[in-house]
């Protein structure tokens, strides 16, 4: 502990903070700004918003609470945190909704002005929790934020109700002080953001400063915290959510193929932001088609690929179910197609705003007939960029559909993204240096087994394809049984060969030992953190995260063999485990998370510990 300015400054490795208030309180905005400043001051971050599922629930109700949680600190921050240490609660409903997850002994910063009888009732409180003993396990800091904000912004010239909307910055100011963060970057951001209105800028800045000063001077806070810096790889960084990263990955991927990106999609939660994001980037010649349904979207992407563009379609579970037939057409016509699937909790409409990882098997097998395709999964928000890029690479190089799995958690969570130098990324141009005489629509490259991608507009290469079985090489329609058997095997073999064109699996932690935790997708962060803890505590445990699910990397099976037990962790009933059991002989165990929420570090820890204990 170091004392600064009369307060103690405590060093911590990581911290988890949650901002919570009404939907209209601007919690997402200040959460995001906090994340940026934490990042800029050298922290690793990971954040996750928690929106209400109604569009606009009545103000002050439990259904209307909007939260933003983030962890920041050293490089071990890989999740938004199991349990917040600090909760900023802008009203009683926010307190009620978030309290169960707060760490015992954690800090509650409550806007006491909003704990009125009316609001307490809306939040279904019988008595005021700030006044009874229900919060005895926590450090409660009551701040009259509404009033202080009002006073601080009085000079701005804005109306009272306009000024009231600044109070999220008051809260942010306090939080920044609490973690010893500078105000300057935020003030600069405000200059840009509110450049159209000096009054708004002034009021927000005043509120922010007031919050900061209040925390610094008030007797309420005894200590504040300085979190460790992360040892992140050098480079320039920005914050991305998974959905932003998917969009960026597609743009950059298509750009490196030298082709136009055609994104055809139908809106669906939680994938819609990819559509919104891509619609903004017309200067990249991105052609966005908002189709009339998912089938049309998928077919338009296929048509675009046929015409020589990079056809991408994006959706979530129900939409994926609808695209099944069209994806099968892409398998048969051997055209590049990227299908982004941002998973949500199912089956059927399920819980559209909740996360789950239960679309693995439909991605693998959800098409009639033998219909193999590539299946990838992004491990984190930033990884969404890389895997989207990778999807474009594999789809165009191997002339195949690629299904890329993300999920609601990744879609909305944010983390630092190390900005790659675009020219350092692989060149994805596919050279089909053919003369018409050499060309046949289903003649294949000997190595990749990909057929040539000759688009309309190329003289001399006129040809016809379709969903009927094709004769080998010539591509004419064939009902010949031997040919069919051959083509079924060729399609399977083409996908299988990709195993030698993807990075091998890596194991983090023990090189061999007792428990290997195998995960895929958004469970990455929690598994990584849990395994690291246990490994550092001396256990022979390791983590293997699959980003390539079909085909598996070549060294995967052999790697499994180095561990006596395999714990498969996933947000479903055991879909990956079933795939593993069907291919590898090992001792498989499962941790299945099914509650619609991101996996917690302690859940993984507990499961591993239990396995370690077993004989």
């Amino acid at each position, binding site marked *: 502990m170091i004392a600064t300015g009369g307060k103690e400054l405590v060093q911590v490795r990581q911290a988890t903070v949650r901002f919570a208030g009404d939907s209209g309180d601007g919690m997402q905005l200040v959460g995001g700004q906090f994340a940026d400043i934490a990042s800029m001051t050298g922290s690793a971050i990971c954040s996750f918003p928690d929106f209400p599922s109604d569009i606009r629930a009545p103000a002050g109700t439990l259904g209307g609470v909007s939260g933003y949680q983030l962890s920041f600190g050293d490089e071990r921050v890989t999740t938004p945190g199991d349990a917040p240490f600090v909760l900023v609660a802008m009203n009683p409903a926010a307190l009620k909704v978030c309290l169960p997850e707060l760490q015992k002994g954690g800090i509650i910063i409550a806007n006491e002005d909003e704990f009125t009888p009316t609001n307490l009732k809306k939040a279904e409180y019988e008595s005021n929790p700030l006044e009874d003993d229900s919060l005895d396990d926590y450090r409660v800091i009551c701040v009259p934020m509404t009033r202080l904000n009002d006073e601080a912004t009085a000079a701005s010239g804005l109306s009272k109700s306009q000024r009231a909307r600044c109070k999220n910055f008051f809260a942010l100011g306090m939080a920044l002080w609490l973690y010893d963060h500078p105000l300057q970057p935020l003030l600069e951001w405000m200059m840009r953001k509110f450049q159209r209105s000096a009054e708004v800028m002034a009021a927000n800045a005043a509120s922010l400063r007031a919050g900061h000063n209040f925390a610094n001077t008030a007797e309420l806070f005894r200590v504040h915290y300085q979190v460790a810096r992360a040892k992140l790889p050098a480079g*320039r960084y920005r*914050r991305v959510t998974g959905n932003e990263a998917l969009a960026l990955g597609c743009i950059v991927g298509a750009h490196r193929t030298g082709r136009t990106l055609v994104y055809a999609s139908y809106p669906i939660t939680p994938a819609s932001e990819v559509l919104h994001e891509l619609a903004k980037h017309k*200067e990249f010649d991105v052609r966005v088609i908002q189709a*009339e349904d998912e089938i*049309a979207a998928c077919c338009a992407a296929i048509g675009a690929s*046929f015409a020589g563009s990079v056809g991408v379609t994006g959706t979530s579970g129900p939409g994926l179910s609808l695209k099944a037939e069209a994806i099968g057409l892409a398998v048969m*016509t051997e055209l590049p197609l990227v299908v982004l699937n941002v998973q949500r909790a199912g089956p059927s409409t399920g819980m559209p705003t909740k996360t789950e990882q239960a679309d693995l098997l439909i991605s693998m097998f959800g098409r009639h007939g033998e219909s193999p395709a590539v299946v990838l999964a992004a491990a984190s928000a930033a990884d969404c960029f890389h895997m989207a890029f990778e999807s474009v690479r594999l789809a165009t190089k191997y002339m195949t559909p690629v299904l890329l799995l993300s999920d609601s958690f990744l879609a909305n969570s944010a983390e630092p993204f190390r900005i790659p130098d675009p020219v350092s990324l692989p060149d994805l141009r596919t050279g089909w240096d053919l003369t018409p005489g050499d060309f046949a629509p289903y003649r294949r490259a000997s190595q990749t087994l990909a057929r040539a991608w000759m688009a*309309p507009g190329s003289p001399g290469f006129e040809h016809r394809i379709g969903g009927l079985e094709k004769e080998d090489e010539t591509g004419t329609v064939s009902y010949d049984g031997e040919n069919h058997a051959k083509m079924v095997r060729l399609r399977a073999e083409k996908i299988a060969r990709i195993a030698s064109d993807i990075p091998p699996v890596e194991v983090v932690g023990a090189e061999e030992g007792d428990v290997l935790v195998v995960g895929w997708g958004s469970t990455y962060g929690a598994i990584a953190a849990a395994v690291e803890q246990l490994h550092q505590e001396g256990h022979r445990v390791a983590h293997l995260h699959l980003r390539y699910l079909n085909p598996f990397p070549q060294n995967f099976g052999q790697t499994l063999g180095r561990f006596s037990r395999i714990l498969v962790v996933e947000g479903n009933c055991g879909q990956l485990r079933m795939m593993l059991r069907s291919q590898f002989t090992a001792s498989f165990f499962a941790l299945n998370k099914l509650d619609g929420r991101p996996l917690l570090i302690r859940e993984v820890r507990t499961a591993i510990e239990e396995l370690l204990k077993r004989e």
Partner: protein
Amino acid sequence: MSSPLIDEAEKSETTGGDCLRILTRKDFQSPQTVRWCPGCGDYSILAQIQKILPELGIARENFVFVSGIGCSSRFPYYVNTYGFHGIHGRAPSIATGVKCANPDLSVWVVTGDGDGLSIGTNHVIHTIRRNIDLNILLFNNRIYGLTKGQYSPTSEFGKKTKSSPMGTIEQPIRPIQMALAAEGTFVARTIAADPNHMRQTLEAAANHRGTSFIEILQNCRVFNDRAFEESSAGKDTKDDRILLRHGEPIRFGTGGGRGIAVRNMTPQVVDLESGEASVGELLIHDAQADSPALAALLAALEPPEFPVALGVFRNIERPTYDELMLSQIAASTVQRGRGDVAKLLNSGTTWEVD
């Protein structure tokens, strides 16, 4: 060399197209043997398409034929250019992707009454309302041919088929009406049994910018023979068809002795020869009218009460989807400069870690 035409076609197979070369019908005949039933109306449509394509001034490699599933949807295999035999009902969507990817292509959709008006209605309608610059040929034989004879959405009420042994209990859908309701910019009807009319109509469609929707009445010899008897080529057709001509009064019958008048929005057949009505009272066909209402009224005329109207119901100009898409891209590029990947990645708040 007895047949120079064939030689030329073969040459183009192996050496690649040459845009400047004059194309002929043979150039568009694919090596695949045509496998419709003997006597199927589809043959005649294929022949007309193969005739007009070389005359459009478009290089062979710039055509794309996209279809769904059905007898009709086998069409692309027989046209020697780029072709995509898609899945049932989805040809307009595939074609939309093709056209958006490369608006320079001349894109043709071939669909049937089942493919385009049962499973695929939605895509047809949305394509039309977007006015994507492509041509939709709907072969209407009022039956599911490929699946061997179930009723289709255009089958007459009461029709007995394999799946309706006691007769259908559904009012048929009327293709032209649907296309007009979607405010199609080019909507026409022709009949496979009249090659000349078909050819003119197809040419007009090809020359229209925007979605052209053409219903082609086509005979299915095997499962629905003579569905369009009253307006087929064999017999004297003057009394049972109206040939629409923009700007002209609507007349039909031998010597144009009869016509259509409208009274409080109700169409009536009037006899000009008997003096029942004068030419001045006749409805004037206006394919360029703003409102599709007149066209819709004509589309609804049907035997036995009325003659069937053939020709172009509507033909108006409106910016196409693909044009508008490109112009937004252009505007955006002017505004922000051509997309720079490094700039894109570095946008927003960034920071350096070292």
